[in-house]
Structures are given as C-alpha cells and as structure tokens.
C-alpha cells in the first residue's frame, strides 16, 4: 500500500470540495432561483466537463499553465514552481473537472425549495443573508452533501487529467489511481490489488454515506 498516494488522493478529494463547494453553492443557487439572460449558456458550460475527455482538459491545462506558456512562466516566477506537475495544478484540474458534479446537485437542492417558503421568510423580516443561512441552506443541505461526496468520489477516480498534468510524482501528484497504474507496470500485481481494493472500499463507503445522510437530512414531520 502506497500511503503517500492515499494521502495525495484524499487531500485532492477534500481540497476539491474545499475549493468548489463555495463556488458551487453560489452558482447552483443562482441557477436555481434567478432567471437571467444567458442562463442556458451557463448551464451548458457547467456541463461541459462531464462530456469532455480528461485528456482534452489536460491538454489545455498544460498549454495554459506549462512552464513555457506566459501564464505558466508568471506563476513559476511567483511561486518558484510550475503549476503543471504540482499538487496545486492537480487541484485546479480537479476543480474544473468536478464543476458539473458539484453545481448540478446543489442547483437541484435549491430548486426543491418551494418559492413560498422563501417569500414567507422574507415576509418575516429576515435579511437575505439570514434567509440564506437559516432557511435555504438547511433545506438545500441534501443536495450540497450529495455534491460534496460525488466530487470527492469522482476526484479519487480521476486518472486521465492526473496522468497528463501530474506526471506521477510521489507525495505530490501520484494519486492512488495513478499508483495502481505504476504498480501494474512494475509487475507488482499484489500492490496494485491492495490499492484497487482500497479505492473500491472508499467508493462504496462514499455512496453508502450519501444515501444514509441524505435520508436522515429529509425533514421529519411532527
């Protein structure tokens, strides 16, 4: 078992949630409650990473942030390391790849709140901020939780992008899924098997957790 790979994978999964959840809640709520021009376009753009081959995403990230691109050079001068082949680069790639997995469940969560609940809260004199924290967020919670767990599970399984912009650097960009690939090439079937089993277990746990938590989070009548 490659513990540093497990650590990279878990950090990447949780980091993706940390980066994406605030953005997802903002955009998901916006798409759920507002009508605006270009909404269809935004919704389409949000879905693009779902159908985009990971290698396409990897290609564009390398072109944009590789050591030879202007943006990459600027980042390297600023950070002392390139964004490609670093954990931060992986995090960026993973955040982009996971946008649909986060925004869509959250949007459904906010859409499920009847508009009269929102209006009633406004009539009670709650400020928009209070309405958001005390009424909408609790009611949209199942969607947010689903988004977080989906993003986490999907990040753990990400392979194509990681291989292209990550380069399998131990403790930095070698995630569990890439480590399995590496172990197979080293003819270490046992090592690959253990890690594959670990990923399988994490995936199943994540799904059980989503189901259980979203069930519990449904408001009880009483």
């Amino acid at each position, binding site marked *: 078992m490659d513990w540093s790979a497990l650590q990279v994978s878990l950090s990447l999964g949780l980091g993706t949630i940390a980066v994406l959840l605030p953005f997802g809640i903002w955009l998901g709520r916006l798409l759920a409650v507002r009508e605006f021009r270009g909404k269809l376009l935004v919704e389409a753009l949000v879905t693009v990473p779902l159908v985009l081959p990971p290698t396409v995403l990897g290609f564009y990230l390398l072109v944009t942030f590789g050591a030879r691109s202007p943006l990459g050079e600027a980042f390297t001068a600023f*950070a002392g390391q390139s964004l490609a082949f670093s954990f931060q680069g992986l995090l960026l790639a993973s955040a982009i790849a996971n946008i649909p997995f986060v925004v869509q469940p959250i949007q459904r969560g906010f859409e499920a709140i009847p508009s009269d609940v929102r209006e009633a809260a406004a009539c009670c004199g709650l400020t928009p901020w209070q309405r958001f924290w005390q009424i909408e967020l609790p009611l949209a919670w199942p969607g947010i939780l689903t988004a977080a767990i989906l993003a986490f599970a999907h990040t753990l399984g990400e392979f194509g992008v990681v291989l292209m912009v990550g380069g399998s650097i131990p403790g930095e960009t070698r995630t569990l899924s890439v480590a399995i690939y590496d172990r197979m090439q080293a003819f270490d079937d046992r090592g690959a098997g253990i890690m594959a089993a670990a990923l399988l277990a994490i995936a199943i746990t994540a799904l059980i957790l989503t189901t259980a938590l979203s069930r519990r989070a449904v408001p009880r009548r009483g």
Partner: protein
Amino acid sequence: MVYDALVTCLATVGFRLLAAATDGYRVVLSRAELDAGDRHPMRPLLWRNFRWLVTLLLLVVSAIGVEAQRPPIVAAASDLQFALDSVARRFTADTGERVELVFGSSGTLTRQVVEGAPFELFLSADESYVEKLSAAGLTRDSGVLYAVGRIVIFAPRGSPLAVDDQLAGLGRLLSSGGVKRFAIANPEHAPYGRAAEAALRARNLWQPLQPALVLGENISQAAQFAVAGDAAGGILAYSLVLAPALRDRGTFALLPESLHPPLRQRMVLLKRAGATTERFYQYLRQPAARETLRQFGFAVPPQ
C-alpha cells in the same frame, strides 16, 4: 518563498472566516432551537453535518499549506524499472539518503521536463532526448553515457511463438496467421519501441505485423501487454526480461545489435539538481552500480 507565505496566510484567513461564520451560525441555531424546541429537528442535524464537513475541509486547507520535505525525484526510462530500483535501494543502504524514482517513456519524461516537472536527474533510454534538453538549456551539462541497452523477442508461457535471434519463428507464425497480438513500446516516444520497429523492419516483418501490434505507452507497459491476454509475445528490453518479475513468465532470445541502431542511454543532471542527487549521479558511475547494470543485461561503457 512568497508563495508558501501566501498559502499560509490564505489558509489562516480562511480558517478565521470559516470559524467566525460557523460560530455565528451556531449561535443563531441555538437561539432557533430555544425558540422552536423540538419542532425543527433538522437544524441541529444540519449543524452536525456542517461541522463535520468544515473540520475536514480545514484539515485539508492546513495540510495543503504545509510543504513537506521530500527526497529528490529521479526520472528514468522504463527499461530501468528493476535495475535502477536495485541501485537506488543499495544507494540508500550505503549512504542513508533517498531518491524517489519516477518511470516512463523517455519521450514522455522529456516532455514533462520541458513543461517544468520537478525532476533533478533524468536517465534517458537514448541520447537524442538528453541532447534536446541540453540544447534547450534545461540541463546542467550534456550528461554521460551510462549504458547501452539491448532488446529481446519474448514469448509468454503457452504462446505458440518460437523465439530466435533472427525473428524467423515470428515470421513463420505470422504467415500461418497465428499472431493475434504482438506488443512493442510506442515508437513515437519510446526508444525501445523505435529499436523494436527497426528490428522488425530489418526482417521485413513491420508491414505484415501491423494489424497485430499493440503499443505500450512505455517498455514496461509493453511487457505487461506481452505477458497478458492473448499476446503471442513482444519485443522488450533485455533489462526487463532478466528481472525476477518476468524471468519465469516466458522465453526470450536476445536480438543482435546489428538489427537496430544502438540504444545509447544517457543520463543528465537537470538544472534544479541538489546535493543528494549529485551524489546519486556519482554513485551510478561507481563500480557497484555499473555491475548491477551489467547484471540486468546492459553493456556498460568504459568511463
């Protein structure tokens, strides 16, 4: 570094903000609980879930901000998968220092160096890649020749392929239609794939073999393909089939050097190489490391 400081600052600020936000939230909730009694069982539950998530996220944010001290990274062509692993292990035993090894095709690794991968030493399976990097100013110098590689034709156990150094068995099996799959490394970016292509062309087998070819991303993956599934065999690195992991999985025949341009393997220190990597570079040129390379079938050039 500026960047580290910034990350730490951001993490701290994020910490404070989140703590403040959730704290306020908790206060509001508890007042709501007081007012509502048990009639809103969902809110405390929400807080429980939220607290759990926030704790996890904060842990990650703080973990990301911390830069761990890691051993230097050595990028090496996949034909060195077993040989270099053995040398690196002995290096650690002798000196107490560690290097991390990353394997891939020489072409892929070269591309990664160009794009800024944090490697300190690059052991290529051929000279041209090192020359390219050197010309681009990404290396310390022009490096040294550390080994000359050889290729073999390999047949996994149970394969109908008879191996011989002139590829006659492959030709016979091919004309009888018995070759379903045959593995080589991708000639586009793997030197061992190019050597395999040259050898097959030299025996006029390249064209007839086309429908059966499976291309490994690097020579290790080609070896994986050669032993797996219904492959009749493949053209692999001598250094891989001599390793315990592959030795007992089939038969092989060493191909004569006349069949392909020599695999002159060059290594070079990259710009960011540190003291440990320099010592490893020197260690690779010592008699013990050279002997290990020899055991894995490499011809080791005189110093």
